[in-house]
């Protein structure tokens, strides 16, 4: 029977090693090649920036969802992968969550939100995992293992459906391309198009695709954001043009 499994990693990198997003990309590719499951889009979740938190550069964790008939196998494979690819100086943590098996999903959601607001500890993370022996699987994979905090938080934020942004960019076929919202969605990579307030635009909305744009994660969907133009069309926004509320 296929299940959904959230997988999140954090603190896998150092200043000179591949970023955590790239590590998760590689892990997903390896999982697929092994026939263990198919990963979906990756979301990036910004956590608290604080002098007491020893992040490498930006304190964010990367999360994905895997559909698999062998959750145990996926977790074992991911753990072995992180052990094998550990970079000296990094403090990797892995969190796997079976959302359907959680006794108290609100606890995980609260942990995710707390990680954006205050400093949490490994003990905080372990305590939550111990309360959810069927649903949450935490593991440390080198160094201090501090990454389990961000990894658990990332799962909570992904589960919330409304946090962070999606890894990667959407590219136009040509600079300044014109297309409708429905046509953009049909290409894949985004589930809907919304205005800067988050209101979903109809499928026949004319869009102008001037620059590569970034999708954000809202209500469980990949959302591209567009702003209105004087000519009645809507311009898709690049990351640097997104309202601040979509970047925290």
């Amino acid at each position, binding site marked *: 029977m296929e299940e959904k499994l959230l997988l999140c990693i954090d603190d896998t990198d150092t*200043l000179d090693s591949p970023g955590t997003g790239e590590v998760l990309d590689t892990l997903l590719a390896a999982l697929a090649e092994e026939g263990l499951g198919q990963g979906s889009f990756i979301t990036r979740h910004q956590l608290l*920036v604080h002098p007491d938190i020893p*992040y490498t*550069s930006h304190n964010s964790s990367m999360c994905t969802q895997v559909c698999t008939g062998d959750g145990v196998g996926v977790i074992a494979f991911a753990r072995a992968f992180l052990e094998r690819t550990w970079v000296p100086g990094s403090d990797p943590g892995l969190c796997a969550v079976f959302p359907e098996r959680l006794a108290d999903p609100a606890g995980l959601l609260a942990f995710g939100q707390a990680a954006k607001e205050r400093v949490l500890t490994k003990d905080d993370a372990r305590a939550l995992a111990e309360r959810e022996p069927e649903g949450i699987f935490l593991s440390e994979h080198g160094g201090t293992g501090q990454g389990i905090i961000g990894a658990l938080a990332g799962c909570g934020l992904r589960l919330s459906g409304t946090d962070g942004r999606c890894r990667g960019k959407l590219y136009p076929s040509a600079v300044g391309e014109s297309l409708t919202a429905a046509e953009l969605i049909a290409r894949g990579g985004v589930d809907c198009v919304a205005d800067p307030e988050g209101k979903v635009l109809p499928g026949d909305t004319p869009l102008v695709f001037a620059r590569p744009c970034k999708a954000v994660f809202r209500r469980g969907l990949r959302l591209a954001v567009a702003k209105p133009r004087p000519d009645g069309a809507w311009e898709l926004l690049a990351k640097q043009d997104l309202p601040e509320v979509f970047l925290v």
Partner: protein
Amino acid sequence: MSGSFEHTPAGRTFRFGRHAPEEARAAVCAQYRRDDEEETEDDTVSCYNCRYRRWTVESFVCMRKGEEET
């Protein structure tokens, strides 16, 4: 140390904070290395987009090795 940075308890800290794009572009040095696309602010060559940039609450700390500058 260049005029763009100062010593703080956190390390070599950018003086101008997180919202000074011109100053961040002007402070780029020979060790500049572009960060992962997920972590860059925009498409410019800027300290804000450097792999050695470590964000703090108010600014960032430069984590580059050595003191070489352009």
